[in-house]
């Protein structure tokens, strides 16, 4: 059964069709990249899935349950985690508290959390007591990804997770995302513009244009597709 299913989803802002009849099915444990030029509707689609916006029409289901139009906190409770493009962490709290807040939503007791393992995985073991506001940009991005992992979602939406990262941090993030998907429990949908990142991620790619799904296929196929090349990669790619 599909974990996340979008059926003919529309979102219009007046006369502007930001999302115009999107059908999308993601299976459990699938890793998928979502690409497209700026303004094609990628972030609006994330907003619709996570409840920030209500669809003008269409249904969104999580593991068969209709979550269309639910508020963000109920959709998050249902199992959809979202990482924002700009790292959204609690600056006045320590790294450990940031992760603990996310873990509490699973009904776990903070002290029983395998936080140490998670912190090590995120390369933040030495920074557990540091305020999130004092971390570097890349570290803040990892803290937010760590919060998603601590919350234990069944679907993870990552909006440009490597924005502003160094090459080394980006490579480590690719490994982390692949590890998450490799568990087979979490479905991951990633918005990303970094072609190098997408190449290393080596997963199925869905291309959006003008609020619609244009193509879905492997990264190599998409890169070879003339229409996608013209639209997104540029003819020189």
């Amino acid at each position, binding site marked *: 059964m599909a974990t996340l299913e979008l059926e003919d989803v529309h979102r219009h802002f007046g006369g502007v069709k930001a999302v115009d009849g999107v059908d999308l099915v993601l299976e459990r444990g699938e890793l998928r990249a979502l690409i497209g030029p700026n303004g094609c509707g990628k972030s609006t689609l994330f907003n619709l899935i996570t409840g920030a916006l209500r669809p003008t029409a269409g249904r969104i289901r999580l593991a068969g349950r209709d979550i269309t139009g639910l508020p*963000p*906190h109920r959709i998050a409770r249902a199992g959809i985690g979202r990482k*924002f493009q700009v790292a*959204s962490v609690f600056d006045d*709290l320590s790294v450990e508290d940031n992760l603990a*807040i996310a873990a509490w939503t699973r009904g776990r007791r*903070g002290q029983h959390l395998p936080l140490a393992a998670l912190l090590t995985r995120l390369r933040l073991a030495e920074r557990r*007591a540091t305020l999130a506001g004092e971390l570097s940009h890349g570290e803040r991005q990892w803290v937010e990804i760590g919060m998603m992992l601590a*919350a234990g979602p069944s679907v993870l939406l990552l909006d440009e997770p490597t924005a502003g990262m160094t090459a080394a941090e980006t490579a480590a993030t690719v490994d982390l995302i692949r590890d998450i998907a490799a568990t087979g429990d979490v479905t991951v949908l990633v918005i990303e513009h970094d072609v190098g990142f997408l190449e290393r991620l080596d997963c199925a790619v869905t291309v959006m244009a003008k609020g619609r799904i244009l193509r879905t296929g492997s990264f190599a196929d998409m890169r070879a597709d003339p229409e996608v090349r013209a639209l997104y990669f540029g003819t020189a790619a």
Partner: protein
Amino acid sequence: MDAPVWLALAVFGGLAAVPSLAGDYWTGQLARYVLFGLFAVSLALVWGRAGILCFGQAMFFGAGGYAMALLTLGIVEVPGLSGAWPALALAVVLAAALALLLGFFLFWGAGISGAYLAVVTLALAVILEQVVRGWPLLGESTGLSSVPALPVGDNPWDPKPTYYVLLAIAAAVYFGLVALLASRFGVLLTALRTHPQRLAYLGYSVVALRIAAFVLGGAVAGLAGALFVATDRFASPSLIGFALSAEVLIWVALGGRSVLLAAFLAAIGILIVQGFLSEALGEWWLLALGALFMVSVALVPNGLLATPLLWLQSRLRRAP
């Protein structure tokens, strides 16, 4: 993060020593100031810790005060309820209920936050004060006088027993709130203040957390107001309106909204200084307070007392 426990113990210990050092007049005055300090703590909780800028916190202080006056004067009788202490408990519940009602209306119904919330709560405080001024049951502009004092001690002219009881209540509430803020709830309030959107996307109801903080702040303010009216033996419309709401905001901003002890001490300190300076400067005292407020907001935005405390906490946290 609040002030170190040893410092809070020293502050309350120092306040406990006042009656033996100062006369009955200052003990009586300080009893009132301690209650205003508790009132300031309620706003620091709501504004400084939960990020809800309430410009009408006196609504709950006054609601607690008027409820206490109505119940202990026998103007309103509740079957099975008699005596000052049950009346105090009911006054706190009524103030919290008012906060719950407003919280539902403001956060859940209207979805108001930020500067809009400040404006709306300010307007509500003004409206409530006008309602009280025109309501015969509440004594209209004259207020309600001869409110029975708290049944503490044998000698009604000795302010010390009442002072100690009020100080003990203030200390209990303070340390109770500090313990609460050190718990999971406190961590969530910090998250709520820092990034409510992130909190919602983790699965928390931001509205429910805001209402919880608002109700808790309302209950503490109501407790302070009820005790104040029983101590002052007088409930007046000025306890519920705009002026006191603005005053407590200045105390909390000057002391430091994010540290409960700083807000508590700022209220007491400013009221003591006000006693001296208003004699020397008359109405010019308010100008001096306003100037100090502007300088503090511009140069020491975290508050005159909280800034050194936060610096100290930061140093202690970084120490190996």
